[in-house]
């Protein structure tokens, strides 16, 4: 592909200086998202998936900061922007959807006021035009009777409807990139299915690039085109969703997949990964996964941590799992 990706993250490192040393919640992460594509970022809590999203949109809380690497939005570097230029970019060219739709809307303003504020700020329309635009945005995300409901307050909407409002808010200035941080985690299964279908439709129709951060492998399989698996701040595996799910290459991805109850239906016990993810202050040498990995050798325990580039395949692993037979025949 020669087209410039909408978002390109290159060797991103985020560091937090603490009294006990410098922590790296994001360590040499690189990926691209093209227009109309959904990249799923998956991992367990503390894997650095939200931190990566926040770094992209410039929402890192101090003292966390980007110490190295590049973030390019349609080819332009944005990782050094601060203050006014960054504020102009957020909302206009990058939208964000948070996990909890209630806390990400202002309870004192009507939904219409919040939408028109964003639209006028970024597109400079008149009051009437902005209001029409807001109604159109609400209709597009599937809120029934948008013309009447635009003057309601967030608490008058149900959880699923609120998340639709948040999506409308993220989309109303027509951004190129949307970062959705666990957008369905607080929702029920049937509403989750509606929101995923909505995200997929908007992504396809508008050609928005979406970074979908979630811990749910099922959501990834359902929604994403490509998937990035994170472990202890590092990328463990990056590839097309079908390849990663059907034939995981990194032992951690395989373990993650096998430990979902879905993978072991009819078996008495679930496969489990022994132990738990190391704390950032106490990362083991070499590959961060080696203490929990059954394929680990002495090579994994020493030296630098493997990266996807050094692994030569999809996975940041010295001993990746062989591809499944079904993939070879394809």
């Amino acid at each position: 592909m020669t087209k410039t990706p909408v978002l390109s993250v290159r060797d991103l490192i985020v560091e937090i200086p603490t009294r006990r040393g410098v922590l790296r919640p994001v360590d040499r992460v690189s990926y691209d998202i093209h227009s109309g594509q959904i990249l799923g970022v998956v991992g367990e809590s503390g894997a650095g998936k939200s931190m990566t999203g926040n770094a992209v949109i410039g929402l890192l809380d101090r003292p966390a900061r980007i110490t190295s690497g590049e973030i390019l939005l349609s080819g332009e570097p944005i990782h050094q922007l601060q203050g006014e230029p960054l504020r102009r970019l957020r909302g206009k060219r990058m939208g964000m959807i948070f996990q909890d739709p209630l806390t990400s809307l202002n309870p004192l303003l009507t939904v219409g006021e919040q939408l028109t504020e964003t639209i006028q700020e970024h597109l400079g329309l008149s009051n009437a035009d902005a209001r029409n635009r807001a109604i159109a945005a609400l209709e597009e995300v599937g809120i029934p009777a948008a013309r009447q409901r635009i003057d309601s307050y967030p608490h008058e909407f149900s959880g699923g409807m609120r998340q639709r409002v948040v999506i409308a808010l993220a989309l109303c200035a027509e951004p190129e990139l949307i970062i959705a941080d666990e957008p369905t985690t607080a929702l029920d299964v049937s509403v989750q299915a509606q929101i995923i279908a909505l995200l997929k439709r908007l992504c396809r129709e508008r050609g928005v690039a979406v970074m979908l951060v979630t811990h749910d492998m099922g959501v990834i399989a359902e929604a994403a085109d490509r998937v990035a698996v994170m472990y202890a701040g590092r990328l463990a595996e990056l590839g097309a969703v079908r390849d990663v799910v059907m034939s995981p290459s990194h032992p951690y991805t395989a373990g993650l997949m096998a430990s979902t109850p879905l993978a072991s239906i009819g078996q008495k016990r679930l496969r489990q990964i022994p132990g738990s993810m190391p704390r950032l202050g106490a990362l083991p040498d070499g590959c961060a996964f080696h203490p929990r990995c059954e394929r680990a050798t002495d090579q994994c325990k020493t030296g630098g941590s493997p990266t996807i580039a050094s692994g030569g395949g999809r996975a940041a692993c010295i001993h990746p799992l062989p591809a499944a037979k079904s993939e070879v025949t394809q």
Partner: protein
Amino acid sequence: MNKIIDVSNLNRIFDVSKPWLNRVIERKEKAYLAAVSDVSFGIEENSVYALVGESGSGKSTIGKMIVGLLSPSSGSVEINGVDLMREMDKVKVDTVRSDIQMIFQDPYASLNPRWKVRNIIAEPVAARGGDTKGLAEKLLEQVGLSAGDADRFPHEFSGGQRQRICIARALASGPKIIVCDEPTSALDVSVQAQVLNLMSDLRDELGLTYLFISHDLTVVQHMADKIGVLYLGRLVEEAPRETLFANPKHPYTQMLFDAAPRMDSFGREIPPPQGEIPDAINPPSGCAFHPRCPMATEVCRREIPALRDISGARVACHLAE
């Protein structure tokens, strides 16, 4: 098999009215929310019964009524033939109370941060004046932690380890039944697998009976022997696991199964379910699911369907066969 828990015609109504003065000024009626309506089921000894449903379906309310944290508005819960709310014999009530324990969803909120793990675990026994020497250490090892952890505080443990402490506490009084309210939904998948395996092992070792409350169908499919599906406070379908997953009969169960994300669903383009759970204060007439049901007919709008036995399952739908 004999039923260890027998729930019959359970109802729970919450008064959600505005304060008296507001009602007078705004001329509003009292408002009631029927969280659980006419739910009956039985749990066999040494089995896992799961209640599934979305938020507001009444699954946690039923769990709380079974352990006695809430009293039913009407109907009864019998544990080993004893109704905790009506039984006058104190000795019987006391035995049943220590036979039933609960594990809560959030392992961060359900452990007292100022207590050492030893005291937390021994409390169910200490509260009755029992002997707690060495109890915490023994239980910690049983749930896969070490005896030395007894002198630590809850904040020193990760989420999965805390849930193990909650399990140890639930086991302290030697219960027969454990009510688990979303025990793994706050945990990561790999940790969830560890906790679920531990729960299966303990069930085999100690002959426990679980009431498993969850919104996660995959977890339920793995754990449960029998499953009850709730919608807006009513049991809409109940069946053994194999029957339910092979052939869901109620349209709501079918919708729930279709909506759940699957691993093999790449690029799946199915129309998502329609509508949302209705307001429980003003539920729809007749079958509560009819506004979202693709098959709804006139009779569904009029009459509340009763649970009927249909080939090994109990289904509350006019049209199921």
